[in-house]
């Protein structure tokens, strides 16, 4: 069951969504005092699947911190804006935290909106994960090249020999090739 956390810290009656969400079969987590310190603990302890809050909530910066810290488990955030914030909707959809901004508070529209937000969020996390993986691969490749250079330089090996030496070391120590490379680079830095 989808676990939803409602943040009620502005004039907008976010808490009124509670009944509608329960009727839709969602698990609505106990409300926090609306203060950011309490909210932070609520998010960390209760691990909601979606956080719903007002676009003008002062707690938004706190959620930014969560998005930055927990890249592996960021939270999709659904934001409510007043009518006519079309540009904000478009922007929010492109933002790093999956966000879907809704005009007004029509409970009947909640279910499809939450579904879209979740789907979009999953897609974004997936893209981000792929990007992280690619960056990691690039860094690995660079370090392996550098380590090969160190071996060629200090041990008078040719490139193929240097690569073979790296692989052999990795297998012997049960390490990834890039990790062995990084150790060699660190050692070379140390020894000059």
């Amino acid at each position, binding site marked *: 069951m989808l676990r939803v956390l409602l943040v009620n810290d502005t004039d907008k009656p976010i808490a009124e969504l509670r009944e509608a969400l329960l009727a839709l079969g969602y698990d609505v987590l106990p409300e926090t005092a609306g203060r950011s*310190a309490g909210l932070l603990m609520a998010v960390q302890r209760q691990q909601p699947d979606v956080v719903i809050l007002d676009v003008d909530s002062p*707690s938004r*910066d706190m959620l*930014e911190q969560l998005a930055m810290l927990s890249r592996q488990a960021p939270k999709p955030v659904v934001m409510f804006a007043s009518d006519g914030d079309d540009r904000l909707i478009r*922007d929010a959809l492109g933002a790093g935290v999956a966000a879907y901004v809704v005009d007004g508070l029509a409970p009947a529209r909640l279910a499809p909106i939450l579904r879209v937000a979740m789907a979009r969020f999953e897609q974004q996390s997936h893209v981000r994960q792929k990007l992280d993986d690619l960056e990691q691969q690039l860094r690995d490749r660079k370090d392996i090249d550098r380590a090969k250079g160190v071996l060629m330089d200090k041990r008078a090996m040719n490139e193929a020999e240097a690569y073979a030496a790296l692989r052999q070391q990795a297998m012997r120590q049960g390490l990834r090739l890039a990790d062995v490379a990084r150790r060699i680079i660190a050692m070379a830095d140390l020894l000059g």
Partner: protein
Amino acid sequence: MMTPLRTLDIGFMPLVDSAPLIAAARLGLDRANGLRLRLHRQASWAAIRDRLLSGELDAVHAMAAMVYGVQTGIGGPRADLAILMGLNCNGQAITLSPALADACSGDRPLADVLRALPRRPVFAQTFPTGTHAVWLYYWLAAQGVDPNHGIDVVTLPPPQMPDAMARGELDGFCAGEPWGAQAEAMGAGRRVIRSGQLWPGHPEKVLACRRETAALQPELALALTKTVLEACRWLDDPAHHPDVVAWLSEPDAIGVPAACIAACLHPSEDERPGEGLRFHAGGDANFPWLSDGRGFLRQFRRWGWLPAAPAKDDDWLRDVHRLQTYREAARALGVAVPVRDERESVLFDGVRWD
């Protein structure tokens, strides 16, 4: 016939250092430059960023570090931004709980005091890539406390920090004034270092806009820079403080008692020249120093927010810092400009930033 005024929507956070924007509109400096500034108070830095990126706001009151965070896409959307000028220097503080402040007042190093706490220490800042996070991390690390391990660092809206500290939820926080002063007044905390002592004359809030605005509408960027630079110069004259205090204390600006705001504008007794809040400082507070940008990026990498990168930063930093527009605005107003785009700063621990 008069040319119609160009309306600009400007976002600000309810903080003392939003004063240049509020003063610019109140004094009519905008109209004198062919502009009409419409100010919109925001509830979070995230809202300021999103509304700037979406085009709902044309320019914003932003933390200097935050601009580089958006430019490099740390923990959120990435977008090309521009810094037109600095709005102020100094004026922030690190506050510790009274017990912690007492324990540190002797010779005991902060790291030891924190280890002796019955629970994991909790420190607060105002935005993950904000200036307060940078000042807090720097200060902690200079005393041998690794901000990434053994302590929790959380983001909180500054008005909630004094209360959270009074409830025992926070051991320390870094924020702009009046929030450190407020914690002291409540007996909930003690300011142990002002940001102006940490880095005298440090950049704090800036006037930021989208890159396309700065690059494709240079006349508009120039008019806005002139408007706000003039307001900054006006603000540094203490004779004008009573007006500023009245404007800032209004409910749609900051909405805290006038006395509280007035206290933040006055230099405190323990501050030396160059350490207190200034909006102009002869232009030093407004020049968008290229070296300040490099300093922030070095800290981002130090804490692992940005991957280590080849030193190509200067190429794009020159696009973010609108030096030519600033120099032109300053010349028009007779404000002194430095010859170089960089400066050298010495921080409280003796480390040089350039």
